[in-house]
């Protein structure tokens, strides 16, 4: 038994699992501290910093091993490493390895969570959305096309098609990765005023300009590849939220009216279900709705408090310094 659990971490895959988690923690720590020290307030910058937490731990281990195949050896740990994660999982107390078991429990739980709660619903939504609405929508009409045309002119992008679907819920989203369409449901026309409708459409077009669908898909794939790692699970949500902030900022730059977008977002706040009887489905739905509302509320408050939306010259020097420090430090984390 020495050992199968420990020997796994001597293999390439085992080292990848262990080190990528260690690298994620170190990267997260440095990125979050850097955001505060550099006072990064602009959503676009925050997104770029946070992307490092997801991407770097995914690629650093194979890159480091390519540079120095001896990096996982005992002597590297002894002579050069500033932190060796395998020492922690190898701690033996009364013949047992409690930290190893805890570690396996954590990566097992995270893996199950990612597959059941995250991966399955997201994949289901991903595949169902265009089929549910894409082919069934009817053209939005001249007025909407005119608004979309104006926004396209400002954002310097191709005019997407706009489809209206017959759904009782307020819905608006963008489909496609190269040929985009904006899909919205009929109730939005009755609940939105002209300014809110323009803001909602501009927000969707901001997603098109940013190619959010492709970015989110790539980020999602990296996250799925690191299904065992708890950090990308948390960071993915922050990244998606940052992407929404960026698109909110672009929207405000087009419409000049953050209040209109804020009130357009309020339509999407969900009722949190409650019941006197305890039911697991209610609890789950309540958690999901509250979480959804919390993210929306953050965006609404940000818009109502005026920003910051303005773009300023990007601090590439500080970003490069942070990136170099993360890579340099993680080289010595094994």
């Amino acid at each position, binding site marked *: 038994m*020495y050992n199968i659990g420990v020997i796994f971490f001597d293999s390439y895959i085992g080292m990848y699992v262990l080190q990528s988690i260690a690298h994620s923690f170190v990267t997260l720590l440095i990125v979050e501290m850097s955001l505060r020290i550099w006072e990064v307030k602009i959503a676009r910058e925050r997104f770029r910093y946070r992307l490092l937490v997801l991407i770097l731990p995914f690629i650093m281990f194979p890159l480091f091993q390519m540079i120095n195949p001896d990096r996982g050896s005992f002597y590297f740990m002894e002579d050069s490493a500033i932190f060796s994660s395998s020492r922690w999982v190898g701690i*033996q107390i009364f013949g047992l390895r409690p930290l190893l078991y805890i570690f396996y429990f954590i990566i097992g739980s995270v893996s199950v969570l990612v597959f059941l709660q995250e991966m399955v619903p997201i994949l289901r939504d991903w595949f169902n959305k265009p089929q549910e609405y894409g082919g069934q929508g009817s053209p939005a009409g001249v007025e909407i096309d005119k608004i979309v045309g104006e926004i396209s002119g400002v954002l310097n992008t191709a005019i997407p098609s706009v489809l209206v679907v017959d759904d009782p819920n307020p819905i608006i989203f963008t489909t496609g990765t190269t040929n985009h369409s904006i899909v919205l449901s009929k109730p939005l026309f009755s609940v939105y005023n002209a300014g809110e409708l323009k803001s909602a459409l501009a927000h969707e077009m901001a997603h098109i300009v940013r190619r959010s669908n492709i970015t989110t898909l790539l980020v999602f794939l990296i996250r799925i590849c690191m299904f065992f790692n708890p950090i990308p699970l948390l960071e993915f949500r922050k990244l998606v939220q940052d992407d929404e902030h960026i698109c909110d900022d672009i929207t405000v730059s087009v419409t000049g009216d953050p209040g209109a977008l804020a009130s357009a977002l309020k339509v999407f706040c969900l009722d949190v279900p409650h019941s006197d009887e305890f039911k697991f489905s209610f609890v789950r739905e309540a958690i999901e709705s509250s979480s959804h509302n919390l993210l929306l509320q953050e965006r609404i408050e940000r818009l109502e408090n005026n920003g910051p939306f303005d773009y300023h010259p990007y601090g590439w020097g500080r970003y490069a310094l942070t990136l170099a420090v993360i890579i340099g430090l993680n080289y010595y984390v094994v």
Partner: protein
Amino acid sequence: MAQLRKYVLFGIMIAVTVMLLDLLNWVPNAVQKDGVRKYKTIEDAKASLKLSKLFLPSYFPQYLIWPPSEVYGRRKPSKMVLMHFINYDRKDVVLSIMQAEASDPHPLRSRIEPVKIRRRDAVLIKGRRGELSLALCSGGEPCNSVTWEEEGYTFTIIAKDSVQELLKIAESTLSE
């Protein structure tokens, strides 16, 4: 001035992170007495590992620095001692001697572990049957090794030297 303050803060943050990682790296060694540890001297290793006998060669080529540059030892799951010796001129490890309990499933690898075995031969070391490997270390440098068993221990000596010198060192660890 405000910019400079940010860079100083960033430097402090990195220094604190490094110190924190270093501290975390020290903890397992502090609580774990049975894993592989580095000892300052052979005597320390012998006393700490409670070894009844530590076999040391009486013959050392003159180019080697005594005492060993590194002494590693482990108590569990199997007792093991590994010593590295440095060449006086080259200042790199050219000889390693390992004494491990014969049942040790995971002996520690030497710093001069051969990467390519060219030939294996049976050999007698003062009457004990052993195996001589003619091999190359990384960089293509010859590093031959000899392995045999004695009193429940497996001995492995790896030397970046000729077979004659290697066998002379090996034989000098045994009294008869």
